[in-house]
């Protein structure tokens, strides 16, 4: 029995690959399993190659795993295009459509001998039982259900629900195709068993993806306005709010460009509403100027960057974590702009609520650094109760303060009560121009310094927060792992494996990336001799950012890879083992030759 399996499948766009993955995840979730499903596509609008990798587990998982346990290729050309995203190893069972006319000992996988290779008449079963080769994905669902022993009833119910609109004949054929796959699996049991053990508790869970959950969390947080422009891989946030926000009294405006998107959001915030925009790297570049306006005018807003491969158009369909420098440093002038990063799709809920709270409390734009993986992957999550949530709203002036209202009053905290149009007595001039306390434009150096000081000082409490860090391992461990964003899910699991293997490691994952809480890192590094900063970008951007603010021990190195080059938990564990050996060698004195 297995407690944790990774299934990967690839085919052409029209094969319904992603919908098969989603059906499998949903059925597994209804059976009580945990799971994470990532999807990956070629650049084509329609057709082209398409794949998913789904990790099913009896306990909580934070990433879609490493080497596949079962690889399904509907055709080899498409499968091979995903390279390292669908890694096959010595323990993998390779299943492929026998219509590819490739003999099992001739499959085009170089340098690897899978545990089993099975040519299955997938298309033939789809045609004969399902009546169409479009039922290939349903046949595969039957195969998986049979071999893994999961989700049988749930999948049949799912097929009935999904296809109900298309009429009884279509439903019946699809169910037949499913049964054909199931029967095939039962008649051809795997030599190396892949049946799943029962989950820790068989309770149905939520299935979420980061983009939709971001939209939902925004509504829960009280967001009344979204302005944005379509861009992969963030558009689903706009789609979600375009469907849902109206019901709760909000407005979604698809703007003419990225600049107008954040412009409208700044306007809505000026008018007193909680507001959000979402984009990806190129859009962030365009929004930079207005982010600066929100900083100097001290207007709250949330700006989500669902990162993709860059620079420029880069690889829109693949996730990367290479916009950290941009998030932190793209402003002109002396600016601190809070940057938050969720570690999973589920975490997008907490981070979005947090982003609104920070934005409103500190009257500042807040950037959420998500990525294409967190944004678009589906994962099981514990049910979320949206009524139990702590929300912060901007501090508005009291009636007494409105008698002699001074918008940018230099207070002890640096935070000044903020009025909005419609509020009698609160009238003021907001501007991108430097201003005095009442809002009047000024070019006076002393006033500029005073206002800069106020705008930066107000973040002191945020900088001191220690609750926005995930930690694992012993306080005095000599080996460190630091990671952020979607790849943190890999680092967390790697740390847990390393700890089980007896390695002396500890982990730190900042969900608040900026401003840097220097104390948290200094304390963390006290015991550290060696370490690894794991991130999905080429330069090691967090590593370099930390070195700007903190004394990072010399033995700390990076495990940094460009997007679309998966980092797996076992790879991280291997590096940690090497670091441990290196540390031990250092400690052991060299034999003397005297």
């Amino acid at each position, binding site marked *: 029995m297995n407690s944790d399996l990774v299934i990967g499948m690839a085919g052409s766009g029209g094969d319904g690959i992603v919908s098969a993955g989603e059906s499998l995840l949903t059925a597994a979730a*209804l059976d009580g399993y945990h799971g994470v499903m990532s999807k990956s596509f070629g650049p084509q609008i329609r057709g082209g190659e398409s794949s998913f990798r789904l990790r099913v587990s009896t306990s909580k998982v934070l990433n879609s795993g490493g080497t596949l346990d079962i690889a399904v290729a509907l055709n080899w050309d498409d499968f091979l295009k995903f390279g390292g995203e669908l890694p096959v190893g010595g323990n993998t069972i390779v299943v492929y459509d026998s219509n590819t006319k490739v003999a099992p000992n001739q499959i085009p996988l170089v340098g690897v001998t899978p545990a089993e290779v099975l040519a299955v008449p997938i298309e033939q079963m789809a045609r004969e039982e399902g009546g169409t080769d479009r039922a290939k994905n349903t046949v595969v669902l039957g195969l998986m259900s049979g071999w893994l022993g999961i989700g049988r009833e749930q999948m049949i*119910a799912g097929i009935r*629900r999904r296809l109900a609109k298309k009429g009884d004949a279509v439903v019946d054929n699809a169910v037949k195709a499913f049964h054909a796959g199931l029967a095939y699996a039962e008649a051809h049991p795997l030599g190396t068993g892949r049946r799943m053990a029962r989950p820790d508790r068989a309770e149905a*869970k*939520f*299935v*979420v993806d980061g983009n*939709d959950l971001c939209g*939902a969390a925004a509504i*829960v947080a009280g967001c*009344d*306005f979204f*302005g944005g422009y379509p861009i992969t891989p963030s558009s689903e946030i706009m789609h979600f709010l375009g469907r*849902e926000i*109206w*019901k*709760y*009294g909000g*407005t979604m*405006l698809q*703007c*003419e*460009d990225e*600049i*107008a998107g954040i*412009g*409208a*959001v*700044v*306007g*809505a*915030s*000026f*008018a*007193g*509403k909680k507001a959000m925009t979402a984009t990806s790297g190129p859009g962030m570049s365009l929004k930079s*100027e*207005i982010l600066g306006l929100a900083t100097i*005018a001290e207007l709250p807003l949330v700006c989500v960057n669902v990162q993709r491969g860059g620079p420029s158009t880069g690889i829109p369909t693949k996730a990367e974590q290479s916009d950290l420098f941009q998030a932190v440093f793209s402003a002109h002038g002396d600016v601190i702009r809070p940057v938050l990063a969720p570690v999973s799709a589920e975490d997008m809920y907490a981070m979005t609520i947090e982003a609104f709270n920070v934005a409103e409390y500190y009257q500042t734009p807040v950037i959420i650094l998500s990525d294409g993986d967190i944004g678009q992957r589906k994962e099981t*999550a514990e*049910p*979320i*109760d*949206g*009524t139990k949530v702590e929300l912060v709203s901007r501090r508005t002036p009291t009636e007494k303060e409105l008698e002699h209202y001074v918008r940018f009053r230099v207070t002890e905290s640096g935070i000044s009560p903020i009025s*909005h*149009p*419609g*509020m009698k*007595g*609160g*009238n*003021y*001039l*907001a*501007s*991108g*121009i430097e201003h005095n306390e009442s809002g*009047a*434009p000024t070019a006076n150096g002393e006033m500029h310094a005073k206002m800069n000081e106020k705008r930066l000082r107000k973040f002191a409490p945020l900088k001191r927060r220690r609750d926005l860090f995930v930690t694992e391992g012993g306080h005095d461990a000599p080996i460190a792992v630091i990671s952020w964003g979607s790849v943190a899910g890999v680092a967390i699991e790697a740390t847990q494996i390393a700890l089980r293997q007896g390695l002396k490691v500890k982990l730190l994952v900042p969900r608040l990336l900026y401003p840097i809480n220097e104390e948290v890192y200094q304390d963390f590094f006290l015991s550290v001799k060696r370490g690894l900063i794991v991130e999905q970008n080429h330069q090691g951007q967090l590593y370099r950012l930390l070195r700007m603010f903190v004394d990072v021990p010399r033995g700390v190195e990076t495990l940094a890879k460009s997007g679309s080059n998966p980092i797996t938990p076992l790879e991280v564990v291997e590096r940690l083992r090497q670091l441990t050996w290196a540390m031990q060698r250092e400690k052991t004195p060299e034999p003397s030759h005297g």
Partner: protein
Amino acid sequence: MSLATRRVEEYTAKDYKSELKPIWCPGCGDFGVVQAIYRALAAIGRPPHEIAFISGIGCSSRIPGYTTAYGFNTVHGRALPIAQGIKLANPDLLVLGAGGDGDGFSIGGGHVAHAIRRNIDMTYIVMDNQIYGLTKGQLSPTSARGRRTASSALGAMEAPVNPLLYVLGYGCEFVAQGTPADMNGLAQVIEEGIRYPGFAFINVQSPCVTYGLEDQMLKAQKAVMQKLETLGHDPADRLAAMALAQEYGTKLYTGVFYRNPHPEPTFEGLARARHEELGAGTHPRAEVLNVFKLRK
């Protein structure tokens, strides 16, 4: 009468004048524009705190600060998207946008078309002086071909944008032109624009006394300007309006070029209807999480 023009109590022009002293050059046309705005707002009678006045960057974009309304002097070219966000966030506000010809038809030119097609109820006043004044005299999008400026020492090679034809072409429902050379006429078209229930555009020939040309000054304008109403122009006739707008740069017409006699729905009006239809405000926000619940 729309909500934006609901008269609440009596106000005079000076109630809209702030204490800030304008940075404009003595004799600048924009002094007249802000006076006309005070008068138009007094005629409408909304209290200053229910007015949001948004501008971009440029000499003329300083204008919100010289009023007692909630002002927002934003960044170059983006007054319109920001103003629209404000109006959609609070449709009860009276929203004014203002800026120069560079702000509206060069760096921010792309936003004008979309403000028009959304038809959000606001008034956009462009102070058109055919020059970049704040940056000290460069070519603007409405400068005439051949004009010599700091950035076109040997003469401009490109043709000017025609702001009137531009907005009419995109379907703007209220299009007018005024000049501080005729203060009554200017205050009147601004008031009419504000009263129009949709996106209203007003081009103001506001001369730059420092970098402008002699024939653009108020004195010269007074000699050539012609009121559209005296020409017998029917403002309900869009094609006639376009024919007259064609003469931008050669003739100085003042008054209303076009006013749609059958106003199209506004974005915020449609939004309000959608909110009512969906029972907005009656659903607890936490309900949105139900979409993630698994269905058996």
